[in-house]
């Protein structure tokens, strides 16, 4: 009989794995795989979604093939059968004796257009057929000699051969009626179907109403312009109530008029009164070609075809002068063929006979030789790419898009600010483009070329977006120089959205930098302390408490920072800054004081040592409240200078005034030493500390072998005091040297703003401390105990053990801790949202605010219209944030792996 094999425990083990165990194993494996892939898919999906929203920003505009229609000179009297189409597919019939139109404008729906002919005739034309459905004239008496048409709105001005000037309001008027109330023929219209109706165009809307579009022309009475000679150049600006005009008659006499319109409530008639000034004109050999009035009516530009511009400063019309003369052509010999304005009439656009266009605006220039301190400077150049001479320039009514009509029949669209060429459309038979405009909604281009009207449906989604404008410096209208700017919304209609992400990226980095500067040392030191020095039992209380801090909602921290800390710190800036030095100093002082106690006392009171040393906080604050104002009085003295006599009128000792007094402000005089001291004090403390560890300590160690503890403590104290003195001396020396080279104001300190980077650094530091602390503490806790034993057994102190063994061993974990804190700081939203002013400025000034990518998204996304440029830009900001954290994490992981490997391979 075979004996069963021996058994230790009295049972026999089944060697087959049970089915349920196998199932559980397979299930676990599947779940983990699904989870892993799910994570990857989720992240990828988010990324793809972001990219999908962002990509349309950079797609080029699209346009439909044109609808071409000739102008049918039928007139309102005979609305008849459409004339036969011609070879180009357009219907046309030449004008019977009339003059060619010179200007065109379209309504919002691009159904109707009106054209102005040189004889003063206004035709209202169906864009789809070219049929003229109404006609008016703006020259009922004298012959029309000059005109100025609106960029936006309805105010036009006309000048006549007899020297009179008339204002007119020309605009499309809409009337709606319910379909039941509509006259018989209109009821049969299909949805969106149109038909000419009583000098207008009727269309059935999607909502089932009939809308009738007519051109309303209200020509006001002539105004005496102060001359009887023909008016030959004319421009206007301003509102219908207070128009401003500038004009020249055939003798080139230049006049400037500010008009006031009053409406008589009884008769309904509008009367205009004008105050006219004759501006001393500086003539040249030839008569000028163009006159333009800036949007605010403060400058008149007189422009000659050879490119010379005289800028008249007419802020005070009675004392108007030529502020400057500018040469507008890119190369000598070129001629200007058209001029216009961008929306807002601030940026001048000049088109030349080589097909290119140049934009110009006034900027403030230090020491400019002009009367108003401004200089008209070239802002951008829009390349013609071989197109013929520019014939017409017109601006979009909402954006900075220019439609430039060329001699060879092309219409090119540019976005000015970022110099992005948006695309071009081409007329069929290369006839010169007299007038080309963008539809009021930027969704169409209507052009007048030869006798035909061209109409393109356009889709220009995001003209402002281009990589250059988003990540590069852009010269915005009125800015002194190209700059990185984020300013997505503004108060006025002609406000230009500025989508530069760089200030936001900068703000993110600045906020992160200052919060890490504060949080990382504190968190790491705290972790070293609790894991290496603190009694286990105390640690068991401290650690969870710090971790509790992490669960403090950041909105609460932000609230604290913005509403309590920031306003309070603002009142005690010098003390707060001094506290940054005095609190650590007090800790050190008390630690030395402890060493000076007799050893018996030290051992007896060992339990309260921590409490004793923590007395450093109140002591430091007390010291700071005393030293802060003293240092302020000593270092931050500002002498107020009377600008006329140069005499010192007052001497103030105020830190915040001192901050403002830098940067060449002539009203103040102050020494920059104090500002440098703030930087060099910690730096030289570091240097001196390092030197004492490297040089003095080994020396002391040799000498102090047989010294008593007391004597050692005294020597240490002496070292400490002389070190402090040395630090101060070194810092002063360095500061004095740096002061000779540069003023720190404008570098890392400048004007104090209540909600600033210091506050954010402080409070966000608190937000990231728990997370850094916890991970760092765990990392050091994971260092095997036997390494500590070995180090201590070799005679190392706890501090030496911590620095030489524990920190290097835990380095990869510590690095992760810092990186996780970094990630948290980069993405942190609520604190920066509430504790900074959210001003997207780009300066390292610790006393000013900033706006981060995340806070920007939180601020603007609720307001952003879906699929608008702003909306997509916010998604781009999110993508940038995503990429930033991705890159940081990747680098972090890479470095971490290296540290880890180094520990094993070296």
């Amino acid at each position: 009989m075979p004996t069963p094999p021996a058994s230790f425990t009295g049972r026999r083990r089944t060697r087959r794995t049970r089915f349920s165990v196998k199932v559980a194993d397979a299930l676990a494996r599947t779940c983990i795989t699904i989870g892993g892939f799910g994570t990857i898919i989720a992240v990828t999906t988010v990324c793809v979604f972001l990219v999908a929203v962002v990509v349309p920003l950079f797609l080029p505009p699209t346009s439909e093939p044109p609808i071409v229609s000739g102008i049918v000179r039928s007139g309102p009297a005979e609305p008849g059968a459409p004339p036969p189409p011609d070879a180009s597919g357009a219907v046309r019939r030449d004008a019977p004796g009339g003059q060619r139109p010179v200007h065109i404008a379209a309504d919002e729906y691009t159904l109707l257009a009106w054209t102005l002919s040189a004889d003063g005739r206004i035709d209202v034309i169906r864009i789809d057929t070219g049929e003229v459905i109404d006609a008016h004239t703006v020259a009922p008496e004298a012959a029309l000699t000059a005109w100025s048409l609106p960029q936006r709105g309805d105010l036009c001005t006309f000048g006549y051969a007899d020297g009179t000037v008339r204002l007119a309001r020309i605009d499309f008027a809409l009337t709606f009626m319910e379909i039941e109330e509509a006259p018989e023929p209109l009821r049969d219209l299909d949805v969106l179907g149109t038909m000419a109706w009583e000098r207008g165009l009727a269309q059935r809307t999607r909502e089932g109403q009939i809308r009738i579009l007519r051109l309303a022309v209200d020509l006001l009475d002539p105004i005496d312009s102060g001359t009887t000679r023909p008016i030959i150049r004319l421009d206007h600006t301003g509102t219908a109530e207070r128009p401003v005009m500038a004009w020249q008659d055939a003798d080139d006499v230049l006049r400037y008029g500010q008009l006031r319109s009053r409406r008589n409530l009884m008769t309904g008639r509008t009367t205009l009164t004008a105050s006219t000034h004759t501006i001393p004109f500086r003539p040249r050999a030839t008569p000028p070609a163009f006159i333009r009035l800036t949007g605010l009516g403060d400058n008149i530009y007189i422009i000659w075809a050879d490119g010379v511009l005289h800028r008249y400063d007419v802020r005070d019309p009675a004392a108007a002068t030529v502020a400057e003369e500018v040469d507008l052509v890119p190369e000598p010999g070129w001629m200007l063929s058209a001029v216009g304005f961008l929306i807002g009439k601030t940026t001048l656009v000049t088109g030349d006979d080589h097909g290119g266009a140049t934009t110009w605006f006034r900027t403030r220039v230090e020491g400019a030789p002009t009367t108003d301190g401004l200089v008209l400077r070239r802002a951008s150049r829009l390349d013609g790419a071989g197109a013929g001479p520019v014939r017409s320039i017109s601006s979009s009514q909402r954006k900075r898009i220019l439609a430039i009509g060329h001699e060879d029949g092309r219409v090119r669209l540019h976005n000015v600010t970022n110099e992005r060429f948006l695309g071009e459309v081409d007329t069929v038979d290369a006839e010169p483009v007299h007038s080309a405009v963008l539809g009021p909604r930027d969704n169409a281009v209507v052009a007048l070329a030869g006798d035909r009207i061209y109409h393109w449906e356009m889709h220009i989604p995001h003209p402002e977006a281009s990589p250059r404008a988003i990540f590069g410096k852009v010269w915005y209208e009125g800015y002194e120089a190209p700059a990185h700017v984020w300013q997505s919304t503004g108060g006025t209609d002609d406000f230009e959205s500025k989508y530069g992400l760089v200030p936001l990226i900068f703000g993110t980095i600045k906020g992160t930098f200052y919060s890490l500067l504060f949080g990382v040392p504190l968190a790491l030191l705290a972790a070293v302390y609790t894991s290496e020095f603190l009694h286990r039992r105390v640690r068991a209380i401290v650690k969870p408490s710090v971790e509790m801090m992490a669960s403090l909602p950041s909105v609460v921290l932000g609230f604290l920072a913005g509403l309590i800390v920031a306003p309070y710190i603002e009142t005690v800036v010098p003390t707060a800054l001094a506290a940054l030095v005095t609190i650590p100093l007090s800790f050190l002082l008390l630690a030395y004081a402890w060493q000076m106690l007799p050893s018996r006392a030290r051992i007896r009171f060992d339990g309260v040592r921590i409490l004793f040393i923590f007395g450093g906080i109140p002591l430091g604050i007390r010291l700071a409240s005393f030293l802060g104002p003293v240092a302020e009085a000593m270092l931050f003295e500002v002498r107020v200078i009377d600008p006329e006599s140069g005499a010192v009128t007052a001497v103030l000792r105020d830190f915040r005034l001192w901050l403002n007094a830098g940067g060449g402000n002539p009203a103040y005089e102050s020494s920059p030493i104090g500002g440098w001291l703030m930087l060099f004090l910690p730096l030289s403390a570091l240097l001196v500390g390092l030197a004492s560890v490297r040089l003095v300590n080994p020396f002391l160690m040799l000498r102090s072998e047989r010294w008593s503890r007391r004597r050692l403590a005294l020597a240490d104290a002496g070292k400490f005091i002389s070190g402090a003195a040395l630090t101060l001396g070194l810092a002063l020396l360095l500061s004095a040297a740096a002061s000779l080279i540069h003023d720190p104001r404008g570098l890392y300190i400048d004007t104090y703003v209540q909600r600033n980077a210091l506050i954010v650094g402080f409070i966000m530091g608190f937000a990231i401390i728990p997370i850094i602390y916890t991970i760092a503490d765990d990392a050091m806790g994971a260092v095997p105990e036997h390494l500590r034993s070995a180090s201590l057994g070799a005679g190392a102190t706890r501090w030496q053990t911590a620095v030489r063994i524990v920190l290097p061993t835990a380095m990869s974990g510590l690095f992760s801790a810092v990186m996780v804190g970094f990630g948290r700081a980069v993405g942190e939203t609520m604190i920066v949202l509430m504790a900074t002013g959210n001003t997207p400025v780009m300066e390292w000034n610790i006393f000013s605010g900033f706006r981060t990518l995340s806070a920007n998204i939180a601020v603007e996304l609720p307001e952003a219209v879906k699929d608008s440029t702003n909306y997509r830009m916010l998604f781009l900001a999110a993508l940038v944030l995503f990429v930033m954290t991705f890159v940081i994490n990747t680098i972090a992981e890479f470095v971490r792996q290296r540290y880890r490997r180094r520990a094993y391979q070296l």
Partner: protein
Amino acid sequence: MTHTAPVQPPDRPIEMSGRERILDDARFAAMARGESIACETHAALAGEDTVLEIDRFNLHYGTVRALYDISMNIPRGRITALIGPSGCGKSTLLRSVNRLNDLIDSVRITGDMRLSGDSIYAPDVDVIELRKRMGMVFQKSNPFPMSIYENVVYPLRVDGVRNRGTLDEVCERSLRGAALWEEVRDRLQESALSLSGGQQQRLCIARAIAAEPEVLLMDEPCSALDPIATSKIEELMLGLRGEYTVLIVTHNMQQASRASDFCAFMYLGRLVEYGPTPDMFTNPHLRETEDYITGRFG
């Protein structure tokens, strides 16, 4: 105080050897009651110059008592071996000598030790200075995650020694002493963790002797070593004899008999018998000692 040490008299009948032994049932009974016992200390120890004096030393891990009233004098310049079954408190006693047990929160001690007359457990002792007078080799090798070179010179680094020449010399001599030099002379800058287990242990020995300690505490230094390395370590110990005091824990009876001058037998947290090694191995006073040494129990 609870006492949990399961004490059972050996269940096999103890074979009496030819010689007369002191009857020890009283001792077993005392141990079973959780009491301490008097150590059987040989008279030959009286003539020795004491370097480390252990004076009625007790140690508790929380509520568990690990050492019972240990009193022994470690003679200067000699090799003393601590033997005894696993878990009897040898490592605990060794760690108590340089106060590494301070790291464990639950440890409570009474009694004292004196190193050349200086109290080890007095309240105002500078523990760091004290530890610098002793080197320690642990049961489990524990090299630092640094280069081999830095591992060896670590005690000097801690003392602030910077002189490259000194460091190099100490490194080489220590490594030679630990019988490791030939193996690592070309890879001093490599990580210590790339060494084999036995090499790591010899590295730790090198690190301990680099500190030039008065007393070298070794906790089973050779348990992971092959016979060649073991004999080298023994050579080293014998070479150190005279100038240095070595206190070594070992489970290897041959090693204890070969390489030690004195031998202490511990059992269940008590020091049972302590005397010159030849006596302990050939003529122990107590029967337990003989049983343990001859492998009959433990």
